């Protein structure tokens, strides 16, 4: 277990280091292509070219100090990173063995590439850490997050049951979501479900589905899932952007949200105040915004790998995409639960666009007061007993 987390830590560290020094590998792999094996092939500095090179820290400091920069030096490409010299490969009878060669390559030694497009770095050892992190940590533990949330929801439902509207439905409704809100919501929801199902099949198909279905059926399903996932990815981005814009108003955190948290969202037996959206809904919105956009960015990188040449970023994208996916699916399960079977009257807002007055007063009292101009009166506790006003209306 410790070894797996160490693998993850090593990979994350290597990604951060790579990002910190990302200028060098992203400039041109060809610069690194020297010193494959001998002094003659590994000059200390690469021959200068006429192509412009990026500024260095020295250039920036000189510019800040108002000193003149050497234009000729600026036009030249930077010296390549000092190569790790490879031992001459003399075979098993020589002074150094093959093991030395492989050890040097594993340590990041550069070789002369066989073509202009090839990288001089022959081994990317972070790939091994990435593989171990993906297989031994993510594939092993990530599916448990949505599964665990599902289990907790079932447990919560069995213990708490459906949250009823205290005093029942009043029969009077208040408009809550416009048609464009509902279309934006369901557009995103339907594409999200397709993406989630196909994505989970891709992510955990090998450990979960393969033993159950066998290679032949699994390969067909996986091929279909991959095509579907790639196809709906851009549609998901479109739906995500529409939803982000449409639902942004009212989703910024307010003082009432602090009270809502302190009162446990109404679960502690005291009423938790809320505007049009409560703290949970706002948090879900910002998860959708940030994690969703992160999923979109990493997904685009995976679908169009030519966008970035550095392999490490692709490896990082697979990890972040998988983690973002399980987080979004897990939270979405909670959202779906509370928006459907978990709470009476909640689904009306997205199906009909209107909610019952008693529901609004109970769960979004500040919004209710703003919309109706009436004072929201609450019952004493967080139970389902009707408040005095509702009880009076019923009789």
């Amino acid at each position, binding site marked *: 277990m410790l070894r797996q987390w160490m693998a993850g830590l090593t990979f994350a560290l290597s990604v951060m280091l790579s990002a910190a020094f990302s200028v060098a590998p992203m400039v041109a792999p060809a610069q690194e292509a020297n010193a494959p094996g001998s002094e003659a092939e590994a000059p200390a500095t690469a021959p200068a070219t006429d192509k412009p090179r990026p500024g260095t820290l020295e250039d920036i400091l000189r510019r800040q100090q108002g000193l003149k920069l050497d234009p000729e030096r600026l036009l030249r490409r930077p010296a390549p990173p000092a190569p790790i010299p490879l031992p001459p490969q003399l075979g098993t009878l020589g002074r150094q063995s093959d093991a030395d060669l492989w050890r040097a390559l594993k340590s990041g030694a550069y070789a002369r590439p066989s073509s202009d497009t090839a990288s001089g770095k022959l081994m990317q050892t972070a790939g091994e850490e990435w593989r171990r992190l993906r297989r031994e940590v993510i594939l092993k533990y990530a599916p448990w997050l949505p599964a665990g949330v599902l289990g907790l929801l079932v447990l919560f439902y069995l213990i708490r049951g459906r949250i009823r509207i205290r005093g029942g439905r009043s029969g009077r409704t208040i408009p809550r979501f416009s*048609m*464009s809100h*509902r*279309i934006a919501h*369901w*557009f995103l929801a*339907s*594409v999200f479900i397709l993406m989630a199902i196909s994505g989970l099949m891709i992510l955990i198909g090998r450990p979960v589905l393969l033993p159950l279905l066998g290679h032949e059926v699994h*390969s*067909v399903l996986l*091929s*279909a*899932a*991959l*095509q*579907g996932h790639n*196809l*709906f990815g*851009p*549609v998901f981005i*479109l*739906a995500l952007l529409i939803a982000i814009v449409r639902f942004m108003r009212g989703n910024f955190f307010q003082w009432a949200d602090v009270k809502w948290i302190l009162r446990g969202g109404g679960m502690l037996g005291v009423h938790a105040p809320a505007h049009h959206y409560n703290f949970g809904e706002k948090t879900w919105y910002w998860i959708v915004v940030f994690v969703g956009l992160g999923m979109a960015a990493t997904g685009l990188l995976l679908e169009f790998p030519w966008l970035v040449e550095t392999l490490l970023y692709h490896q990082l994208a697979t990890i972040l995409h998988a983690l973002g996916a399980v987080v979004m699916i897990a939270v979405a399960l909670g959202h779906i639960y509370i928006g459907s079977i978990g709470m009476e009257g909640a689904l009306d807002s*997205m*199906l*009909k*666009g209107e909610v019952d007055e008693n529901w609004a007063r109970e769960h979004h009292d500040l919004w209710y007061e703003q919309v109706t101009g009436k004072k929201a009166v609450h019952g004493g506790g967080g139970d389902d007993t009707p408040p005095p006003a509702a009880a009076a209306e019923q009789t």
Partner: protein
Amino acid sequence: MGLVEFIEGPAFWFALAVFVAGALWRFVGIIRIGHKPDLAPPKGSAGWGWIRGNLRHFFPRGLFAERTWMHVLGGYAFHLGLFAVMFFAAPHVDFIRERLIGVGWPALPRWGFIIAAEIAFAGLIVLWVRRFSDPVMRLISDWDDHVGSWLTFLVMLTGCLALERAHVSLRALHMGLVELWLIYFPFSRLMHAFTFMLSRGATGASYGRKGMTL
């Protein structure tokens, strides 16, 4: 004969025959209904009205455009995307040339197909969501509308899932659903693909004869 051969052979020809015969039967049936003789002297051209009626309905009026822009956009996205995918996807062009009429035409490149399919999917989902979200649409929609939407969605989806052309079973699944769609088409509201011209034209002709401008 295996299941795949059956789906791609006799079942397809049967479905196509039902589609052609059924669509012709419905189309001719509607034309044969005719209309009651209008004894009033004409104040304009019914023929011109027929054409105007058809063309004018492609553009929503200002008052409605503001309220309905989302589903107008969804409608155009779905129908244009579906048309492009149906007649210009490379596998479809190959199929039409090799199995149906012997001639083909230039197909969309893969990226063009992907974009057309995504536009079509986005449009179809928006239209379907509106169908159950809008109170009026929900009221006037029945099982035929939902079956038509879902069947079309599944045909498009399975077609895209089979895009890699690596598995015969995925292609057979797509073909099977296409056959179901072809058989269902003439007897459902999917027939609006052909009859929209008649309904728009009839309204336009009636107005045109009365001298009204659409």
